[in-house]
């Protein structure tokens, strides 16, 4: 197995995730795309963990999984709140920051 193959897989997933974040309108879909990005990072971390023969990559992958769980929890709470106030979760409609 080559180092590149795992890193490239990570890169492809990352870019798909970025596309999802940019293109999707539904807030839940954006959160899903972020999960894709986080997973691609984990693949990288584990590949490097094997490459360097150290266990640190595993540790950090676990930390990222925990953080992702927290992020989804808070993210969905936000989505619910927005939905309750606005009756929509389309990000296009949320443009209070318009200059």
């Amino acid at each position: 197995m080559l180092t590149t193959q795992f890193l490239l897989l990570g890169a492809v997933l990352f870019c798909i995730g970025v596309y999802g974040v940019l293109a999707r309108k539904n807030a839940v879909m954006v959160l899903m795309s972020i999960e894709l990005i986080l997973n691609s990072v984990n693949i990288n971390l584990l590949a490097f963990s094997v490459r360097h023969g150290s266990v640190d990559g595993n540790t950090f992958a676990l930390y990222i999984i925990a953080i992702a769980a927290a992020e989804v929890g808070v993210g969905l709470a936000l989505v619910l709140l927005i939905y309750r106030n606005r009756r929509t979760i389309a990000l296009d409609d949320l443009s209070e920051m318009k200059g």
Partner: protein
Amino acid sequence: MLAHEMTSEVLASSGWFLDHAWLIPIIPAVAFVLIIFFGKKLPMKGSELGVLSMLTSLAFAGGAAWQWIQRVNSVVDGAHEAVAEGAHHVAPFVSPVIHEWTWWQSGGFHFGIGQHIDGLALTLLVVVAFISSLVQIYSLEYLRGDRRYTHFFAALTLFSAGMLCMVLAPNMVQLILGWEIMGLCSFMLIGHWWEEEANSRAALKAFFTVRVGDMGLLIGTAILFFSANSWTQKNLGVSGFNISGLSAWAMSGQASHSALTWGAVALFVACIGKSGQFPLHTWLPDAMAGPTPVSSLLHSSTMVVAGVFLVARLYPVFWEGMKIGDTNINFIVLIGGITIVIAALLAFVQHDIKKVLAYSTVSQLGYMMMGLGAGAWLPAVFHIFTHAFFKACLFLSAGSVSHSGSHHSFDMKKDMGGLAKKMPITATTWIISTLALAGVFPLAGFFSKDEIIDNVGHNGYNAFMIVGLSGAFLTAAYMTRATYLTFFGKARGAAAGEHHDEHDAHADAHDSHDAHATQNAHDSHDAHGAHDVAHGPHESPKLITIPLMILAALALVAGLSNATPFGENWERFKKYVEPSAEYVAIEGTMASGPGEAVVVPAQNVSSEEAVAEEGCAVVAPEAGMACYFPTIHHAPFKWSKAALSLIIVAFGLLSSWMFCVQYYTRRNKRLVGLTERSKVLRGGYTFLWNKYYLDALYEKVIVRSIAHPIAAAAYWVNQNILDGIVNGVGKVSRRVAGWVYRNIDQRVVDGAVNGSGAAARGTGGALRPVQSGKVNQYGALLFAAAAIGALILVIINT
């Protein structure tokens, strides 16, 4: 020739207080927690805990200082004995008392906490503990009945804990910890009466302006850590955060020069913010919105010298990074010199007595920085010491005047005058401190300020010696003006016993230029109900006058602790505070167990001349040896030079006095209205009145001059060129322009602290469509920028 084997050993004594100096900040920290949780239930609402903890800290600091003196003496005596036993010349090296424990560790990095006690740390410890104690005692009366009495004492105590923690920090991480605690307390205390909008704005301004500088602290620490860590680990076995490690690294001659320079510049930016140096001094006068004891403790004598302390503490880094040894102008001396003059000029046009003192503080801090930048380390540190006493005394006197003399007003022109007869103690302490500040002969300020000016000239910075002398003239003049307006001449307003009723006081307040004076007037009004029954000026109660008298007494005599004119025996600061610039063997200089006597290897140098020629700053130490401080030169004292500066000061005092008598009392026709008649003078006055338009510069000019043309240019390009071509191309370039605009704009806003709103409005509607408010578009720009940035890095590196 400086061979390792030639060192002989000298025993340095230690002691319980020296080894347990880390308790000094712990005591107020514990007191803070107790005040917060139990303060309100106590009979004196928690203030007794604050005062008690500060007095205990003071006792500990005093004990440690005493034992330090013993330690220095034992080393010096040991060196003499070694000479008697046949060594040629033994230069004593007094090692600091360093203890460091692991505070926390992560991924192999250890962050320490502990103490680094030497003469500099002890000077500051004693000063901070001493002034804090006095200010807390003073506040018992000054803030009696205040609605947040307990919180006030809690914040004051926490501040002291933070400052003490910073002063004895053995590494940069602990220093940053203390530094940030101080920043937080400064914010809380300036905004103590936050109900008035001006106060909370002043608090925010102080906090954010200092934060701009604090970026430099973090960046500088990071630069130094990453460039020094491997050297310090290898040679000294400590991390690159360690202060003595950094000093030895900077002096080792193996340090990367660009890292030193950039690290020193970044750290100095932090000092500019914290110590109110030009051009970030604008927060300090606004900070006078806080209660007077706060101004006295934080914004004159202790917190604002933190920046000066940082430079003094890491002096080898600045010495090497800024090339202080050369006589070329460097960053520190330049900023210090500019600050002296511009702040002193501003002090002339203030109506508010506290603002005069604030600008005076800024100007004196400029002296300290100029001294450090010109290699006058000892006089600068000595000036921290003396300045603390007389400036604290001046602020507390001003507080006493407003408390009992002017009905809580700080306006010299409206509500003061002729108070000398009614408040004799306050007037005496004020005048003593004024003379000390001006630098009149036997008082504290003379010995420190004159030394700075003298040494700056001696080290070859002649232009800055003239700056120092003109600063001395200005200082004498503006302090005379303030003294005259407050204590002499005809009584005006509240000082004349005019009875404001509640409504009047309020209206007065709104006229006042200085909203905070008003603020104090109004806010402490209810607090002083009982006391206001006896209207009209009178002397303040004992809890206020006793701290004043103690401080004034010190302003009289503190200078004698390093009285260079009287010869070597009087130079105690030089003996006990200045670190020894000696080559020492590395083992034995680092941390040792508590309570043990330390074996200090003292350098055996072949002759006296060798020391002079090959001082630590000139020749890099050999392997196995280290330097912890550069060799600095001391100007020999000459009465002729002192006479010159004394004449200048006397001239300043007299001319200003005559002017005040003519102008304010006799209303001399030729002088009154001069600013209206002469265009030049009027221009100068307006310029000063608007504080050199610096605030306007930050808020309007910088933000707009950069944001505006870019916006305009982008708009022009958009209208005239791009619209003509394909619409889509136009859209893209508009996005790019918007990206540039937002980034540069954002950066300028952050840089100039203020006015982000004004900038956004000022740029007009041209770029509005880019600010769509849509998250996805922002995200697209973010990711595209990241990708392009990465692409550029790839291209550069291939």
